[in-house]
């Protein structure tokens, strides 16, 4: 009998003998992976939503008069000169009035006696992500003010602050709960494996007394750790996917979709979770038999 065929037959025998413990441990890993990746999924979707939120950042340049086609070109040229800009749009008083009505929502009644004529022409500038920080925007705003025909430049000062706060809060909650969860699951899984191996300590000790070499002992334990990590995390991820599909099917109301466009974890992250689970389980198993190999 070769050592490899031994390792596999031994693993199969162990699993048959203690399948209830093995099952419980697998469920532990599954639940841990499920919970962890569930929060990770929420995090990635919220960060996504948050960054789309940030896309709304813009500077409003109010003009004295309606710009001519020539002037428009000049403005665009000057603005692009300054830095990387995502989009520039010219807004007529009519368009401004419409968006104002929309913005006021319930209170649009205040505009009932007005026409668009009281509103100025304006340019909306959407800066690139790199430009989105308070000091850069300030300099940009000063630059825009100095252009001819510009009466005033405004931007969401408090808005930027609130946005960066929001991202900060989000990151904080996720990092904190992620750390807690990672710590707990690692602890629990390794503890469980430890207890499982302790329960088989006598058996491994007897093998050792009979002259079993290191690999003879390690092999089956390693394979078991690997299978545990693999099946546990695969099941966890599968459960997460089902959950995700269910959420997507049940919560695609109009009120949500402008907040979140749900996306599943990318393949690379899935593989990472799989690999880390397997590493944790196998190294947990290894640590728990380390002492035994010194006999």
């Amino acid at each position: 009998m070769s050592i490899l065929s031994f390792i596999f037959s031994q693993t199969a025998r162990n699993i048959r003998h203690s399948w209830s413990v093995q099952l419980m441990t697998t469920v532990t890993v599954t639940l841990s992976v499920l919970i962890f990746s569930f929060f990770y999924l929420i995090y990635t979707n919220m960060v996504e939503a948050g960054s789309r939120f940030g896309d709304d950042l813009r500077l409003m340049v109010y003009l004295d008069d309606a710009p001519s086609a020539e002037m428009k070109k000049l403005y665009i040229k000057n603005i692009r000169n300054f830095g990387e800009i995502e989009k520039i749009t010219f807004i007529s008083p009519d368009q401004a009035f419409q968006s104002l009505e929309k913005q006021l929502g319930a209170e649009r009644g205040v505009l009932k006696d007005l026409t668009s004529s009281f509103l100025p022409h304006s340019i909306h500038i959407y800066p690139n992500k790199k430009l989105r920080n308070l000091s850069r925007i300030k300099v940009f705003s000063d630059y825009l003010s100095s252009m001819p025909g510009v009466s005033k430049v405004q931007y969401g000062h408090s808005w930027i602050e609130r946005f960066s706060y929001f991202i900060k809060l989000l990151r904080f909650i996720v990092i904190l709960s992620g750390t807690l969860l990672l710590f707990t699951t690692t602890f629990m899984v390794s503890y469980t494996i430890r207890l499982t191996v302790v329960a088989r300590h006598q058996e491994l000790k007897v093998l050792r007394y009979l002259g079993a070499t290191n690999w003879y002992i390690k092999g089956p334990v390693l394979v078991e750790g690997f299978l545990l990590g693999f099946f546990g995390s695969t099941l966890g991820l599968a459960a997460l996917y089902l959950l995700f599909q269910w959420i997507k099917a049940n919560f695609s109301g109009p009120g949500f979709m402008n907040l979140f466009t749900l996306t599943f974890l990318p393949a690379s992250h899935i593989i990472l979770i799989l690999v880390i689970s397997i590493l944790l389980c196998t190294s947990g198993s290894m640590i728990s038999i380390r002492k035994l190999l010194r006999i």
Partner: protein
Amino acid sequence: MSIQPSENSKIIDIVKVTKIYPPDVMALRDVSFTARRGELIFLTGASGAGKTTLLKLLTCIERPTKGLIEIGGNDINKLNSTAVQKLRQRIGVAYQDFRLLPKQTVFQNIAMAMEVRLKSPREIKQRVNELLEMLSITDKRNNPSGKLSRGEQQRVAIARAAANAPPLLLADEPTGNLDDEATAKVMALFDQLNTQGSTIIIATHDTSIFKDTHHRLLHLQHGQITEK
């Protein structure tokens, strides 16, 4: 490492070995003796004299506090982990407390000693059945060893020790739970192995098995050894 089959050479050489269990139990004191290949030795002594300790030193389960132990010409203090395991593969031990796996069957328990040496399943099956027959526990072949009577378990432990027909066989109180008939069968097995060249050490109180013997008799008393 391997115990070479050159006739009449020393297989065990123990020189002034002392074993102190922490903190202060002196189990063996300046013990010296040699065993030649093919010998059968009875090791006697009162309870607590140090018989089991001496056998444990030979398989590196315990390490001597002082002194030199050579097995098959190799100083066991100089063996690394793999070498120790290889050595254990060549020594069959019937432990006083059996050390069987209660959930595995009798067959599996005995087969284990051969599997560790990567013997083929056919060879294992044949040898295990032979041993079960010799010790009349064939009908318990597929019972979990934890559900046997104590005397049956003892025979399983002896069968496991004898499975590889090892060059060196250590049996610790092998007949403590056996009636006369079963004792005779076990002794017949040991004699057979001894005739085939195995060196055998039997630690025992059972005067009935060594009273008229022509084999060597070693006596341990308060950790010191004397030849009778």
